[in-house]
């Protein structure tokens, strides 16, 4: 090292330096941090729940939770807010995963809320059930008396999320107050709250998109098939490719075409763009992610609505 200022190391430092391999790789360190947070949730809260969207980040979350409590089962259920507009492959995958992990799955059914007249669908070509997820999520959390909801959000995803805490306090209305967040120092996480309030917990805050892919690859974690390149009928809207599906009405000028595509993120079919790609293996996906010059949320129509779309949704209780 080029450091002329370096002081003569103490005996202790020398001892510590003698074996240089007491250093974790960055993926192992991220894993250790996430496992610590997940265990902290199980220790500090009475009734945690893991918010499961079916995407790669929540699949990573279940993998880390499984490691955290091994050989015991994950000591909390999964909660999936199902808009009814998911990729069918994602639902099949979800059910198999739940079976494998031996955990309980709770489904918040958006369609049911609509049928009961509690919610109304958006109208128009770009209608999405994204906003409808918020009331369903909040009601399911309340119904289950959950006091901590674990989520797979990452700080690198979006600028409002860059300021999110690991332990994120929510008031009795489930709202996020970005100006009044609790400081988090060292490894000390304050999960104290009043009755009726809850926490959102983000154990993979410090992972980037590429970290997630590298880790899923190294760990051989199975993923839904839509993440790999496949043939699909799509159409283009506002520069984004959308999968042809029964829930998204097309404008007359939006022509269907068949292409090799894959999902970079996975949400509803109505608002998740697919991506022209021939990456049909994990290696190719990593290669693609590493060289990609646009953000993964760039293909999410829900984030394109305004510059502060995410910040505004988070304040209302989105995760």
């Amino acid at each position, binding site marked *: 090292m080029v450091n002329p200022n370096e002081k003569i190391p103490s005996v202790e430092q020398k001892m*510590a330096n003698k074996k240089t391999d007491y250093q974790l790789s960055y993926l192992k360190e991220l894993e250790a941090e996430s496992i610590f947070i997940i265990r902290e949730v199980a220790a500090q809260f009475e009734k945690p729940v893991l918010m499961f969207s079916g995407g790669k980040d929540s699949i990573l979350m279940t993998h880390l939770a499984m490691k955290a409590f091994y050989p015991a089962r994950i000591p909390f259920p999964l909660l999936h807010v199902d808009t009814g507009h998911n990729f069918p492959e994602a639902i099949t995958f979800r059910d198999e995963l739940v079976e494998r992990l031996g955990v309980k799955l709770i489904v918040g059914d958006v369609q049911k809320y609509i049928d009961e007249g509690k919610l109304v669908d958006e109208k128009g070509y770009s209608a999405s059930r994204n906003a409808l997820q918020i009331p369903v999520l909040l009601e399911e959390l309340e119904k289950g008396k959950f006091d901590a909801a674990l989520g797979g959000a990452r700080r690198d995803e979006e600028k409002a999320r860059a300021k999110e805490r690991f332990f994120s306090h929510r008031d009795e209305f489930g709202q996020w107050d970005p100006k009044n967040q609790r400081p988090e*120092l060292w490894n000390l996480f304050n999960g104290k709250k009043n009755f009726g309030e809850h926490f959102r917990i983000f154990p993979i805050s410090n992972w980037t998109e590429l970290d997630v892919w590298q880790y899923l690859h190294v760990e051989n974690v199975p993923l839904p098939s839509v993440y790999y390149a496949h043939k699909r009928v799509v159409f283009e809207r506002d520069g984004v490719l959308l999968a042809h599906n029964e829930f998204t009405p097309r404008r007359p000028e939006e022509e269907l075409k068949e292409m090799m595509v894959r999902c970079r993120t996975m949400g509803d079919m109505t608002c998740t763009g697919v991506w022209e790609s021939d990456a049909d293996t994990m290696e190719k996906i990593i290669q693609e992610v590493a060289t990609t*010059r646009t953000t993964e949320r760039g293909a999410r129509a829900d984030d394109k609505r305004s510059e502060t779309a995410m910040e505004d949704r988070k304040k209302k209780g989105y995760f």
Partner: protein
Amino acid sequence: MAENTEYLKPKTNSQIKNTELLRFTTAGSVDDGKSTLIGRLLYDSKSIFEDQYELIREVSERRGEEGVNLALLTDGLKSEREQGITIDVAYRYFATPKRKFIIADTPGHIQYTRNMVTGASTANVALVLIDARQGVVEQTRRHAIIASLLQIPHLVICINKMDLVGYSEKVYEEIKEDFEGFASKLDVADVHFIPISALNGDNVVNRSTNMAWYEGSTLMYYLENVHIGSDHNLIDARFPIQYVVRPYSDEYHDYRGYAGRVAGGIFKKGDEVMLLPSGFTTKIAKIDTYDGELEEAFPPMSVTVHIEDDYDLSRGDMIVRVNNTPEVTQDLEVMICWFSERPLQPNGKYTIMHTTQEARCVVKDVRYKLDINSLHRNLEDRNIRMNDIARIVLRTTKPLFVDKYYRNRTTGSIILIDEATNNTVGAGMVI
């Protein structure tokens, strides 16, 4: 600039194994070029995506700014962009083939001392910016003092805006000497100086051709190569128990593992250990993980430890080495940074969190308030308000197992929680 394609290659499996994680903190105000420097690091390491860049280019243009304002990348919240300042700690990420970096980007004004302390608490490196035209100012000293108090192992002083002083070696040397004179009063082991221009990219990622007199490394080279292998304490074995793993299944009927994160030292299978608070001794039967048993565990690994004898341990207990134990005490002397608008209450009672332990405590005494700009000890004014740093005495309801903060940042740190609001109101370092 030539496309540096090395940054765009994915890592091979052997690279992944050798890639380390480095956390660094920056502090600064609007004018010293901190945001520009971060933007430059992200941009030159290809960590800015085209759509992000396009967005800030548009915003810069709309505001009538000259060129693309890289600083816009780091302003996150609506209220911050409106005011043009950073209020909170923002986390940024970038990676090179050698390391992954986490930047805790914090505001530099005195009213944000608490944010700086937060960002500094987990950092390996503190990056302090000096405007070459102004030299060492109050804010520089404040950042260095915070880095020293929080025991950040490495301090790198970037003397920025060298382009505005004609890339003068003399200016650089004078500032360096000035800072060294002041730093001798601080407890910082490793200080490094780099002359840069964040705006033009001199000595940030690429070597400057304007300062032939400078023979040291670029900032990126420094960040990629600074030795962080001994930043953790590998001497004093400390394992705070976080959670007890009991499967309650037929297959693992008698399984009882103690899950936690190694806070110090190296634990090996067969090691003779002491259990706290009981003081009983036993041996480590095995160190378990999902990926199989380990021969040894060291910080910051998350593992599950089994002991040979059938003692009943629970969260908050600690496994340590026989003959190397932390102090078991109810009386603590701490340097505290105050976070709350409601001042510290003399004789006030708070919840205290330390490793995985929780207790209540009472503030017995305020020894002095520390002037964060001069290190002066103020013995007269003992009113501890938001952003103040003070030395206080605490008495806890039950014994804690503590090390001095300079020995171990994990077992030497505490937070205080207001029992009425549940807010974290103070962060303390054991003296």
